[in-house]
């Protein structure tokens, strides 16, 4: 028996819109097997995931809080991948943003949050952006593999941060390795008090819209897509490929940096190790799930956040470990990539 993929014309729009639904259903079905293995009622487990993430005002706000950094790192990866700059370093860029926020957050610039907060946001963006520019520069200048450099820089940055937390930023009173608390003027206002949801959420949504506009309506977005599709033809057509890649890297890293700013100024109010639960890496999965579409990143990051918070609730009430959320997210990504393939190919099984 031979299984072959045969090209076919794209599906009609309504069928294409249903593809993600099929993917999610299929992923849930397979995760159900793993849940059943623990002896838990599968339907009850799924119900707990849904209610645990969407079932109450508190749960829903927690989901949006989790969604905020994931949306930003998802956008960071989306922008980079569209130019075929393989930025796996959103985690490190996030920490750069977080460090910038923790640093500027303790400098009294002004008592008004209207000055302090924009400065912090800009500093976080620039810090993340500069970190991403370095591997991009190595790529355009010396053809160094960007997957390796961006990934490895994550560790450099994380250990740099630990070094800072263990030395200059160590809390002098408690001796804990976390930075001093940021000033009141640096704290992100809450959106729907008493919930913890902060303006970082609006920044993430706004960033998604701006990324959409960037790709579709600006000259830079046009060049970025051209370089991603075919750098040689872009160069022949008069586009400065190197400069475009550097600009792409800066924006990509900057977006990831904003995720770090949000975690420091909106959630923790100081810098501590483990401020990111791997958001930079989730960004890669989210960007792929969104098919590298900025507005799709909103949906994909929301979906990931639902699974993330929901499975935490579920594991509290059942014997299913919290790691089921990783399994479900991974499965959804795999089924989504498979289903997206079916948009352009059909499976042909022939006997031989």
């Amino acid at each position, binding site marked *: 028996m031979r299984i072959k993929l045969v090209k076919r014309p794209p599906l009609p729009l309504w069928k294409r819109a249903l593809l993600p639904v099929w993917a999610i259903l299929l992923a849930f079905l397979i995760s159900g097997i793993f849940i059943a293995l623990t002896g838990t009622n599968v339907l009850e487990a799924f119900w707990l995931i849904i209610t645990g993430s969407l079932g109450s005002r508190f749960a829903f706000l927690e989901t949006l809080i989790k969604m905020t950094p994931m949306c930003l790192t998802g956008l960071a990866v989306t922008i980079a991948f569209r130019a075929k700059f393989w930025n796996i370093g959103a985690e490190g860029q996030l920490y750069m943003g977080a460090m910038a926020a923790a640093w500027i957050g303790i400098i009294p610039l002004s008592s008004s949050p209207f000055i302090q907060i924009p400065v912090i946001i800009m500093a976080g963006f620039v810090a993340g952006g500069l970190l991403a520019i370095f591997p991009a520069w190595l790529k355009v200048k010396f053809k160094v593999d960007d997957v390796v450099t961006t990934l490895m820089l994550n560790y450099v940055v994380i250990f740099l941060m630990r070094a800072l937390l263990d030395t200059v930023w160590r809390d002098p009173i408690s001796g804990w390795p976390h930075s001093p608390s940021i000033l009141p003027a640096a704290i992100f206002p809450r959106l729907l008090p008493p919930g913890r949801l902060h303006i970082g959420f609006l920044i993430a949504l706004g960033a998604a819209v701006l990324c959409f506009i960037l790709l579709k309506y600006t000259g830079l977005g046009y060049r970025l897509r051209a370089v991603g*599709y075919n750098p*040689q033809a872009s160069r022949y057509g008069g586009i*400065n490929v190197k400069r475009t890649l550097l600009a792409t890297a800066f924006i990509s890293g900057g977006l990831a940096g904003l995720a770090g700013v949000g975690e420091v100024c909106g959630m923790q109010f100081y810098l501590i190790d483990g401020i990111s639960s791997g958001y930079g890496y989730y960004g890669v999965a989210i960007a792929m799930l969104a098919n590298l579409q900025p507005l799709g990143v909103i949906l994909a990051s929301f979906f990931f956040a639902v699974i993330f918070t929901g499975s935490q609730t579920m594991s509290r009430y059942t014997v299913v470990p919290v790691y089921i959320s990783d399994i479900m997210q991974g499965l959804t990504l795999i089924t989504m990539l498979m289903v997206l393939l079916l948009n352009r190919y059909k499976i042909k099984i022939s006997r031989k």
Partner: protein
Amino acid sequence: MSENSTSNITPHPLVEMRDICKRFLDVKAEDHVDLSVYPREIVGLLGENGAGKTTLMKILFGLYQPDSGAILVNGEEVTFHSPLDTIQHGIGMVHQHFNLVDHHSVIENIIIGDKKSSPRGIVDYRGARKRIRELSERYGLEVDPDSEVWQLSVGEKQRVEILKALYRDVKLLILDEPTAVLTPQEVVNLFITLKQLVKHGLSIVFISHKLNEVMEVTDRSVILRRGRRIGEQKTSETTKEKLAAMMVGTDESFVVPKKAVSFQGELLKIDSLTVKNDMGLVAVNNISLTLNKGSTLGIAGVSGNGQRELAEALGGVRRAESGRIIMEGKDITNLPPARLVEAKMARIPEDRFRLGLVMDFNIAENLVMEKHRQPPFSRGIFLSWPKIMESARGLIEKFDIRTPGARTTTHSLSGGNIQKVLLARELSMDPTVVLAAQPTRGLDIGAVSFVHRLMEDERSNGKGILFISEDLDELLAVSDIIAVMYEGEIMGIIPAAEATKEKLGRLMMGIKDSSPAEKTREVSAYAD
């Protein structure tokens, strides 16, 4: 090897390809092609770039599946699903680009994937080394089995590739342009090896477009042109001129009604230009050319004689090592493409899919590429899509691009229409100089004459056109002056009115003077 073929006449071919057809999108790469290879012979597979030589051999080697036709080995029909199948049937291939692992030793590269070399899962290095030494000695393929591949010269790497095939006891060895990467001395050694191999009972398919080499080493040649088999010639009964005529063809003649124009002045001056190729060897050697207003300068030559590097240097994507390119008095040497667009040089690259267009972009996006930073297409950091679409629709109409709309993805168009998109982009900038490298290659006859008409329009409007082609009929039809390139140098510059295909053909083969003495020396250049 006439002594072999007389002493050992076999009526059955070793390998036979019958009526092979293969299409890529709308290009017929193979159009009912037949090929037989008999034991103990070297068959030359001759044709220009894009004639279908490599595709035919990739089909034989199992890398491509033919759309129709049959392959027979020892008279039995076979289907190859992969090169592994093919090697088991005794057919090996040395590709133009080597498939070696740089940081592995020669032995490891040779035995890779060969189960017999590792009985019970343990690699028998000693046995392999012994076998490789034997093969090296027998066929004059000198290489140290224990050195790592990255330490080897190009010629040695090629020997490793040949050894890889011999190690698997192939009966037929396919060599895809094996001399393209070699120095003249290495070529001589390769030819000695090939003759050794045939003496020991192998057959060889030798792909080339270099006539000297084909005359030197083959017993018989099959000539392909535009995917069709043109004919077959016994090497002992043919001449280079005859082969060249079959390669470039006489079946299509182009009629381009040229207007008499009288413009004065130089547009483009190439002054002692030297350009290197990807391997760092001199590909364009100190050439000087002048292009005048209202004229077409044709560049003829067998492919691989520096035309590509010349076009890339003029197009701003390859560095000129020395010399100058002057356009309307302005030095444009080594300027990036964006500056060349500003200088109003239209550039149609040879490889329109890789260099010319972004195939995943839609037509409008491709058309605006070189002017997307200029008003009215750009306002500040934003693009003005209504203006871009409007301009695209105008160009689609003007250049007769057959498409459902301006938002259609470029790769879904046919070959001729893809080229029209590129021409529309380049000619809509109102250029002063048009650089056209192989602008009609792979196009059907209708699209070819459309391209010729566009070029003639530019010429009669006082523009200068540099037209690079391997098709002599085409060059004779479109050019005012024809320069012939051979091994990176200009062999001669002839007004088109005085040029004949015979004259040009001789220059293309590097024969400057057609006296008999010169000819003999040229033919025996590779003799040892």
